[in-house]
């Protein structure tokens, strides 16, 4: 926590809260049982499909994240597209 945060009275998150949030994220990854290799292959295939329709700026910059939702877990892919007019 920075000095400024302390001055402004911003309280640091409790360590138990941090623990819980980290666990929730780790467990989403553990539970989908996706190997790093599978993840790489999946990214490549997603890029292939998307590129058939739109122009992707940099195929390396796709970001796939797994997050926990209320009802189910979510896989989100963030793919930068070339901006054109």
């Amino acid at each position, binding site marked *: 926590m920075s000095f400024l945060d302390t001055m402004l009275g911003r309280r640091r998150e*409790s*360590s*138990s*809260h941090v*623990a*819980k949030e*980290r*666990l*929730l994220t*780790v*467990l989403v990854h*553990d*539970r989908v049982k996706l190997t790093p290799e599978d993840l790489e292959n999946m990214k490549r295939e997603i890029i292939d499909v998307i590129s058939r329709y739109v122009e992707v700026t940099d195929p390396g910059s796709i970001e796939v994240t797994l997050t926990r939702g209320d009802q189910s877990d979510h896989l989100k892919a963030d793919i930068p597209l070339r901006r054109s007019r």
Partner: protein
Amino acid sequence: MARVITITSGKGGVGKTTTTANLGTALAMLGQRVVVIDADIGLRNLDVVMGLENRIVYDLVDAVEGRCRLRQALIKDKRFPELFLLPAAQTRDKDAVSPEDMIALTNELRREFDFILIDSPAGIEGGFRNAIASADEVLIVTTPEVSAVRDADRIVGLVEAYEKGHPRLIINRLKPRMVARGDMMDTSDVVEILAIDLIGIVPEDETIVISTNRGEVAVLERNSLAGRSFSDIARRLLGEDVPMLVFEERQGVWGSLIGRLRARRSER
């Protein structure tokens, strides 16, 4: 017909052996015929925790390999005539027995006992598979720490994959003072993360160490909060509806100086 209950955890050192010894004794105190099995082959421990180490002649592997009858390997407890220990072999490793051996062995015991408690080794390998093979029910022990909870989650998945029904959770070594200041996950956090039923909360308690030093178990101590928690779990296993203990720091100057815990039943 006995109920076979395996006590397991994933991560090591979270309190499986302590739990097995205390639940076994508590169930015997409640008039049940109980055998506790040390399935941690090569790292025998349940005998010393129960103070029975001097009585061992034969062990589980001797029984499995036919060097003795199963009955001969059972060690009778010091206090309770209907509580027995089947010790692990100390000089062999987990490969000395197979899941089929464990099923045959427990089947032989089922007729004579009400409860068969199996103390599982840590991990998810052979020793765990042996310990879980004959289980009707599974109790998962965790502490409220990230690594233990993560490993517990893995075990929940495996227990379900082995079709052992829904495991129930014991949260051990809870430190109410740390929870109160936000530095330890609370029961509700752990239960939410693992999404399984809670059967008990056991606080961090020096009486566990003291009892274990003496080869006694905490459920025999009148003033042990951990002992009381384990007794409650035993009663829940018997189907009683026992409210969870709520732990709180003792109020007042002396209370907080000594940092003594007290407990009350949760209101429902």
